[in-house]
């Protein structure tokens, strides 16, 4: 018999709420986490807004020596891990952790330290200014390494980096590891701290960010005709995935079962999605096939929904291709309207949101959707959350490099 995989713990550190319940309350009430950037001086930037995580002190989640040695991306991940493990009731079970895996998604790694080190060295051509401790602060698997060391987790330890789909790819890989391998527990999710000078500048140059600086909470508007790009966000979400019998035997609370995962590459363009959405549709089809379900079985799609014209149109077309006649019946919404685009964390935060939707029977709204784009003509759950009995939720994530990852969760 196939091994089944369930979600038994959620840890969320998001721009509009820290902790799963605060986050759920925020997304179901349309609360925005977007505001003016406080992390650096934006006076020369055309983009002055982002979704920073607020009310977050790393020292509440880790020893001060670990805080000192970690970039913000790792701190966010360590904090989300602590919340997830506590939620799953695992911290008191060292025997489970010692055999568990850690698989985390991150697109950028320790970008804050990376920039600081580059400035220190290149400013006056002084190689001695590169700290010996720079590498383990910058490397993307700093986050999975610190999580393993802090909690003595000795199974496979990986970081998956596929830009904006990293978090979803990590969860999908973890799901497959439990389903097909001997692993019973994987700590998985996504993390990102991209609100840095160089990262914002680079995305600004790419012309993909909104410059609606005067109205931060209304700046991210997926599927709206007046959108002008996405908002950069930071955050982390960690899910504890467990083999079903393993979870049941210890009396774990089960949020949802992971039943499908589709992962592919459109091999189309490094940053533009295929406007017809053929590749993303194939990923949705693959996930539904793995789950053994039909399009009409999906009750809600948590969209990638970035708030760029290219993504929103390609995703809409992909849903139409994959869902056929049920495309217009299935509600689709994007929480990026509230928390911006958290890159490598996005897929994981949205997976957590999908589990919370299943738990609470509530679909989060796409906020700021006031002028529907005529080319985007699905049900995007505009502006108000919707109470609805949910059994199956699909979560879409797409990344630069034509990378697609689709997860499907089912209420137990």
């Amino acid at each position, binding site marked *: 018999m196939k091994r089944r995989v369930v979600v038994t713990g959620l840890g969320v550190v998001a721009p509009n709420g820290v902790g799963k319940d605060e986050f759920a309350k925020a997304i179901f009430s349309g609360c925005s986490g977007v505001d003016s950037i406080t*992390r650096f001086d934006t006076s020369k930037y055309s983009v002055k807004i982002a979704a920073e995580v607020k009310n977050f002190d790393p*020292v509440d989640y880790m*020893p*001060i*020596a*670990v*805080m*000192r*040695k970690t*970039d*913000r991306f790792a701190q966010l991940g360590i904090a989300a891990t602590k919340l997830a493990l506590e939620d799953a009731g695992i911290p008191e079970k060292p025997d489970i952790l010692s055999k568990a895996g850690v698989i985390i998604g991150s697109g950028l790694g320790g970008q*804050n*330290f990376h920039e*600081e080190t580059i400035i220190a060295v290149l400013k006056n051509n002084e190689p*001695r200014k590169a*700290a*010996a*401790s720079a590498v*383990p602060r910058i490397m993307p698997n700093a986050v999975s390494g610190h999580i393993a060391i802090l909690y003595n987790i000795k199974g496979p330890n990986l970081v998956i980096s596929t830009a904006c789909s990293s978090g979803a790819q990590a969860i999908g890989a973890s799901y497959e590891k439990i389903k097909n391998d001997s692993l019973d527990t994987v700590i998985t999710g996504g993390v990102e701290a991209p609100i840095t000078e160089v990262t914002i500048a680079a995305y600004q140059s790419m012309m993909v960010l909104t410059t609606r600086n005067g109205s931060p909470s209304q700046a991210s508007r997926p599927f709206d005709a007046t959108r002008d790009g996405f908002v950069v966000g930071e955050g982390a979400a960690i899910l504890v995935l467990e083999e079903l019998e393993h979870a049941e035997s210890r009396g774990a609370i089960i949020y949802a079962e992971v039943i499908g995962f589709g992962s592919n590459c459109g091999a189309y363009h490094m940053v533009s999605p295929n406007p017809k959405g053929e590749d993303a549709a194939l990923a949705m089809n693959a996930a539904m096939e793995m789950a053994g379900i039909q399009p009409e079985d999906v009750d809600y799609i948590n969209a990638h929904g970035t708030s760029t014209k290219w993504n929103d149109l390609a995703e809409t077309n992909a849903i139409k291709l994959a869902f056929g006649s049920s495309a217009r019946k299935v509600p689709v919404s994007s929480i990026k309207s509230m928390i911006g685009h958290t890159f490598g964390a996005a897929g994981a935060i949205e997976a957590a949101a999908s589990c919370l939707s299943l738990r609470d029977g509530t679909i989060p709204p796409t906020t700021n959707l006031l002028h529907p784009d005529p080319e985007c003509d699905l049900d995007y759950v505009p502006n108000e959350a919707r109470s609805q009995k949910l059994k199956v939720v699909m979560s879409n994530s797409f990344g630069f490099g034509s990378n697609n990852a689709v997860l499907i969760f089912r209420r137990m």
Partner: protein
Amino acid sequence: MTSEDQRREKVFKELKSLLTDILKIMREKDISKRPEITWDTDLEKDLGVDSLETLDILNAIEDRFNVDPQIHEANSMRGVREVVDYIIELQDQH
């Protein structure tokens, strides 16, 4: 205070400032999170200094005090008092 004591005090103050700088938390303004450094501080036990940070500290000592600290000797040295004495010993050899 003898001149030798004054000299040790001066080295201690410079070492303290150097350690505070290296062991700072990036972009952290809260001064309560700065490392507290006294004569009796144990770098490993009290501040969690690891082998990589030891290298960073040695590099900084080399630049600040114009001495040539040896990693194999420094690795066994964890107390601030010991480090101060080691710097003075190196300065005297110089």
